[in-house]
């Protein structure tokens, strides 16, 4: 064996090891979801889809899923509107306090979700909004805001400044430059940002644990509550369904809106 082939073998072993390390926990959960018996055994002793059926028909999960959809659509949309406006302001204008605004906007990336959830719980108590939809939506909105803002900001920054100049040169007022040039060009970024926000919100657990109640709990919270009482593969099945759903959303988003560009993986 030549040294080149040896090196190549070493490289691929490393790649496989990293892949295994990253996907193993998920694989274990997925494998237990098809276990025919009522214990969370690994490796599984056969193949059965009964837990999927139970997961889909379990009332708590159904309700939590609906709650999640309500929270997600409201929080992501609100974050999109506020985040896009922020992104446009930061992109377009230089003003005092711009740095501070940016810092506040990015802060949910640094501050633990635990802290944010706890903070919202205390705030909710002060305003009598404990564990209601308003509080959950507000909390989720803050959590997903950096991602939406980032997506829109990157799309804006990717617009060739000559395009807006050309539009003005051809007689477009600032309003028309915004509506005819900038908005259509950032629309994919906005859609992609909304989808990322939706996925994050749908699967968020830590902060949601504090701000949701038994009536308003979202799916990850319902799953946690379930597994504290029953240790059967139903949670594995619902996990699998959640993974499949989010993968599908991300795949469609990448195809339709170029998620790579939205996430600034290649900016030109």
């Amino acid at each position, binding site marked *: 064996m030549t040294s080149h082939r040896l090196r190549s073998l070493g490289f691929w072993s490393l790649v496989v090891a990293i892949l295994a390390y990253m996907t193993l926990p998920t694989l274990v959960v997925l494998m237990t979801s098809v276990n025919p018996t009522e214990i969370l055994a690994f490796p599984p002793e056969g193949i059965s889809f009964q837990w999927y059926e139970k997961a889909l028909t379990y009332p708590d999960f159904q309700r939590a899923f609906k709650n999640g959809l309500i929270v997600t659509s409201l929080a992501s949309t609100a974050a999109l509107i506020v985040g896009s406006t922020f992104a446009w302001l930061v992109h377009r204008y230089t003003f005092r306090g711009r740095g501070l605004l940016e810092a506040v906007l990015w802060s949910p990336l640094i501050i633990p979700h635990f802290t944010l959830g706890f903070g919202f719980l205390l705030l909710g108590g002060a305003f009598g909004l404990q564990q209601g939809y308003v509080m959950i939506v507000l909390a989720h909105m803050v959590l997903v805001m950096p991602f939406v803002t980032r997506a829109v900001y990157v799309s804006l920054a990717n617009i060739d400044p000559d395009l807006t*100049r*050309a539009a*003005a*040169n*051809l*007689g477009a*007022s600032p309003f028309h430059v915004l509506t005819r040039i900038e908005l259509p060009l950032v629309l994919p970024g906005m859609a992609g940002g909304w989808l990322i926000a939706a996925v994050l919100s749908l699967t968020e657990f830590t902060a949601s644990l504090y701000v949701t109640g038994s009536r308003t709990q979202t799916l990850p919270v319902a799953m946690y509550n379930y597994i504290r009482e029953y240790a059967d593969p139903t949670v594995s099945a619902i996990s699998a369904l959640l993974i499949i759903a989010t993968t599908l959303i991300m795949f469609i988003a990448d195809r339709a809106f170029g998620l790579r560009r939205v996430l600034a993986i290649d900016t030109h």
Partner: protein
Amino acid sequence: MTQTPIVPAAVELVRVRKDFGSAVGVADVSLKIERGEFLTLLGPSGCGKSTLLGMIAGFLTPTAGKIVVDGDDITGVEPYRRDIGMVFQSYALFPHMNVFDNIAFGLRMRKMAKAEIVAEVRRAIEMMKLDGFEERRVSQLSGGQQQRVALARAVVIRPKVLLLDEPLSALDKNLRAQMQVELSDLHRKTGLTTIFVTHDQGEALSLSDRIVVMNRGEVQQVATPIELYRTPANGFVASFIGEINALPVARYEIDGTDAALALPGAGRLVAPARPDRGFAHGAQVRAFLRPEHVRPALPDETVANVVRGVVTTHIYQGSHTITRVEVEGIGLIETRVTGAEIVGAYPIGAPIALVLDIGQAVLLAAP
């Protein structure tokens, strides 16, 4: 069809200045551009030509001075109210619109009636030979086609002035030559007052009515291409336009009807005294001589202004050859002769005698 003829505007720049912090972008430029003129701003990158264009378009605000179009001071007018068309170096075609919508954009912003827009765009498409491309996305077009869409889009609004910001620099050589002809045709057909920015002296010489040579934010000379080539105003213009030999600084001596250049270390070069040169006896001057005004001396030829040197390089260019000769006391002199015979007659390293046609030289006062 309603075809209002284009009424080209006259443009005047009055002591226009642009500072970038402590750096000077454009230094007090005053310039009059005639109705329907094709004027070129020529200079190396960073000379201020694009900054000047940006101020005329309204993307940059002058630090001082004013810009007047047809008697109206437009210095403070927003770009979208200026009626000035522009073709960008990057073309800046709208990627989310097809060819038709790109060209129609300016007309739609002017709230023109739909039927009229269709007619105007059709005419622009015909003029720029873009028939059949109306529905194409701009990303599906070649560089030359994109260029023509950009031109059609700028011309269709019947602008008072057309600005061209290095529009040919992104094209390959053959296409550039072809687009040069098309630009010239377009100017002839539309009669638009056109301001063209380029760093390519060849483009400037072949397209322009007049050329403004700029360097470090300042205008060096404003002249027709022929004047610019024959009588450059200073050393910068002389070396920027075409190839030229700069001889060492010499003493200008008048002796009756003859004038002589006394070159330290290389003897005297004589020329008929031309009163228009206006140098006093004893002035320090520098002579600039085009390569076509230098030729190898014939064997046993006895004429004035022969210098001797050694061939260092031949650059064969098909129709002619550029030969570099190291001349003692002067330095490198380039000669340009027809054909390739010189390559065989004077191999590299061979001694050669050159005749300098000093009567054709441009003499400038040495600083």
